[in-house]
């Protein structure tokens, strides 16, 4: 629980550093330091936790070893994120300290979402996570695209908040409680209409945040328009937290009614995989392709919502970790590029072998090639769903879509390794120093480690 307080207080400290510190470098160092503190707190939380579920704040929150592990994985990825992107974050605009502060505030929301026990906190967590993201999306004030991304994100996000609240209220009307663990009684008998409507609205709202089709439309535009320094945060850490919340809610509360809402989840999974993968094929810009690929990846994460068993719980840890690391890697390379189109990557392997290698491993992982974390992530997801009796055609469809994804991921690899270019692919004033490369290599090594020894995240 300490981690929620820690991230909020660190956010406040970073916010104040904006008015009390003048050096850009000082602020950046402070942010890096803060991310390390967060990681330390997360590790302490893991060591203190036993397998029992402990309630906090009069039962509003609950932690156990799983949430502690998830928090630690997320805190670790946040640390990597700050390490890899702090240079670029300060370059986005004038209010550099505020960007770091907003990231930490969003992280507070993330940690609330991983361990809430009351729909009240679900709502607060989602809002605390989303509102900073609306600002971050629009933080490049000189850029119309950033404005547009922010407006779209905000309008649609606020719209989906309405559905979230209506869903929560209807469920409350059906059960008389906001407590997630007490709603499990709902399994008995035919559910009331308002309960079903409430579940539908919750699927809509959480599906929206998780960018599941048909509520995904904001994703490409927002990820494309936002400053590239913030897109990986939105696409990885925020996304994983939303999925953790999604799964926790449906596992604890609505598992008894699974027979009724499974059909919706299947429809959403199929649509998400189809739209994400097929549309990504057409894209010319790597950044936009990655936005679609994040939709496609969400399709795989949704399998965990269907299965709701132990495998999927571990799967979300593994898939989440490998997905976050891979997204971080590929964006860390992308942000150094001059040209975001596929041709912009031509000949990168010759000029910047470390960057190209990191990007290649990240793309392998996203595509689910074995010996990278992504393979076992996908494997856990499909296996978990299969154990829970998912129709086999959905699994076959998912494997087919994963095969399509190879096509567009490998376009980047092909450009990097099998094409040549006279010009430098990277931005001339991009900082590609040794610490950056070291971080990138660590990131890549972890991705491979997850592919060789996946138990490392599931056992700890």
């Amino acid at each position: 629980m300490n981690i929620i307080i820690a991230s909020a207080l660190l956010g406040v400290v970073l916010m104040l550093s904006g008015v009390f510190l003048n050096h850009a470098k000082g602020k950046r160092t402070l942010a890096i330091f803060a991310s390390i503190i967060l990681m330390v707190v997360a590790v302490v939380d893991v060591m203190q936790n036993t397998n029992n579920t402990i309630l906090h704040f009069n039962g509003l929150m609950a932690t156990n070893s799983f949430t502690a592990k998830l928090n630690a994985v997320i805190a670790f990825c946040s640390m990597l994120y700050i390490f890899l992107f702090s240079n670029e974050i300060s370059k986005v605009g004038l209010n550099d300290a505020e960007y770091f502060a907003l990231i930490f505030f969003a992280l507070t929301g993330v940690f609330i979402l991983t361990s809430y026990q009351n729909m009240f906190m679900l709502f607060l967590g989602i809002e605390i996570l989303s509102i900073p993201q609306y600002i971050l999306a629009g933080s490049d004030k000189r850029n119309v695209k950033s404005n547009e991304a922010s407006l779209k994100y905000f309008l649609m996000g606020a719209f989906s908040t309405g559905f979230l609240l209506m869903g929560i209220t209807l469920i409350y009307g059906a059960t008389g409680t906001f407590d997630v663990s007490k709603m499990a009684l709902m399994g008995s008998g035919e559910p009331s209409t308002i309960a079903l409507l409430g579940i539908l609205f919750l699927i809509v709202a959480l599906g929206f945040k998780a960018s599941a089709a048909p509520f995904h439309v904001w994703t490409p535009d927002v990820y494309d328009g936002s400053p590239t320094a913030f897109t990986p945060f939105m696409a990885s850490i925020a996304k994983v937290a939303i999925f953790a919340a999604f799964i926790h809610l449906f596992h604890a509360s609505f598992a008894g009614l699974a027979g009724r809402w499974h059909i919706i989840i299947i429809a959403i999974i199929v649509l998400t995989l189809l739209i994400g993968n097929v549309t990504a094929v057409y894209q010319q810009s790597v950044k936009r392709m990655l936005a679609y690929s994040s939709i496609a990846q969400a399709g795989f994460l949704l399998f965990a919502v269907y299965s709701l068993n132990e495998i999927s719980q571990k799967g979300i840890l593994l898939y989440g970790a490998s997905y976050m690391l891979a997204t971080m890697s590929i964006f860390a390379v992308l942000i150094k590029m001059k040209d975001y189109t596929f041709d912009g990557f031509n000949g990168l392997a010759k000029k910047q072998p470390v960057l190209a290698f990191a990007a290649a491993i990240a793309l392998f992982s996203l595509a689910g090639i074995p010996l990278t974390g992504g393979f076992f992530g996908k494997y856990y997801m499909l296996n978990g769903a299969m154990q829970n009796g998912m129709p086999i055609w959905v699994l076959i469809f998912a494997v087919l879509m994963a095969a399509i994804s190879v096509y567009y991921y490998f376009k980047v690899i092909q450009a990097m390794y099998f094409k040549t270019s006279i010009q430098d692919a990277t931005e001339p004033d991009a900082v590609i120093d040794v610490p950056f490369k070291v971080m990138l290599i660590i990131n890549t090594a972890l991705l491979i480690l997850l592919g060789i020894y996946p138990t490392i995240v599931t056992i700890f």
Partner: protein
Amino acid sequence: MIFLDIAVNSKPMDWFPILLQLGIAVAFAAVMIGATQLLGPKRKTSDKLVNFESGIENVGNARQPMAIKYFLVAILFVLFDVEVIFFYPYAVNFRSLGWDGFLEVLLFITLFLVGFVYIIKKGALQWEE
């Protein structure tokens, strides 16, 4: 979770005096306005129909873009104003929450003040550059 005893345990009859007072107030205002309309003399001139602005002649349209400063102050006001909502439940349960509650509210106010310090330092409330 904090419980609002009054909201839950009161019966509709308990609210009757308030309703009565409200009714009398509305009726009084209505009677007074109606009476002046009926009793007062009426002479309409063009000068009288013009908006009264402390004797100064009005110019232009009221729907003009305003300086961004107004907007900023207005937003900040809304934010701080709405936060005060949380004092209502505290006020209702002031006694039963005791010192623990007091300390928590103090913490809340401290966070509030940190925000305020930030705004001041950032210069958001400075009217002139």
